[in-house]
């Protein structure tokens, strides 16, 4: 990969990882106050919508085009995202955070590799090699180890 690709990937990873984990801390605090996690998600989506709209209008990260020719299904990302956020709240409640996190992570990893292997949803086909398979198993083990530790320290 060229150096600019590495840099973009690094920034993307840091942004996504910090955004998700730090954003969650903020959101959990608001959800505790409101006693209503989905209401906190609503605030989260509203603030993020306003901010990203401003960024798009300013042309930050590329001159934005109206996606007039995009197929309808391509607009489904936000719907899937909102469903995902809401459902994870329920699985966490039904299963406990540890088991829910482990199950959800397994689904994330399997789903992602399936999309790659078959080139679903407009993605290019990227075959899954054996090193990648061992890699995802180790990643899943890491989530399992942390989930298990969490159960032990907080009964």
């Amino acid at each position: 990969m060229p150096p600019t690709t590495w840099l973009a990937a690094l920034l993307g990873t840091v942004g996504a990882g910090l955004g998700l984990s730090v954003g969650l801390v903020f959101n959990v605090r608001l959800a505790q106050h409101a006693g209503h996690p989905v209401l906190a998600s609503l605030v989260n989506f509203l603030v993020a919508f306003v901010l990203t709209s401003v960024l798009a209008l300013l042309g930050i990260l590329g001159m934005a085009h109206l996606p007039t020719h995009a197929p309808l299904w391509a607009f489904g990302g936000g719907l899937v995202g909102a469903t995902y956020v809401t459902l994870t709240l329920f699985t966490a409640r039904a299963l406990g955070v540890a088991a829910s996190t482990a199950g959800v992570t397994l689904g994330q990893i399997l789903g992602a590799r399936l999309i790659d292997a078959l080139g679903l949803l407009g993605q290019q086909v990227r075959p899954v090699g054996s090193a990648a398979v061992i890699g995802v198993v180790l990643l899943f083990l890491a989530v399992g180890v942390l989930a298990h530790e969490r159960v032990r320290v907080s009964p």
Partner: protein
Amino acid sequence: MALHPLLPVAVLVGTLLPVQFALNSALTGFTHSPAATASVSYGVGLLALVLGLALVHRGRIPLRRLHGAPGWSFLGGVVGSAYVIGSVVLTRLLGTGLAVSLVIAAQIVAGLALDHFGAFGTVRRPMNRTRTLALVLVLAALGLQVL
């Protein structure tokens, strides 16, 4: 850990995340801007949440419950935006598989760091042998997938 009958449901819910990555990545082919994709994505999600909440609460979304929460706790979306934008950039560069792995790994590392320092008023949970093992597993997992 005994297997819970709802565990397969959690696995299915998890598959929604890479689907979101793929859909947003496809949309970026038309918006030419990860920020614009994030805006559309959050806008559609916002609409779905408003409709869902209005339905559950029979037209009266209980916004009053948010009253009095600390100001900073409303700003999760500012940090959260980086997540959708970052996931779009990663998926377009590397594909869904690697993008999802990188995001999970970054989340674990960030989570361990937040816990270690007890940042933003969270309970302090310093690194220990188990957590170091998890960190090593994450780094090995990434090494195997990137190389």
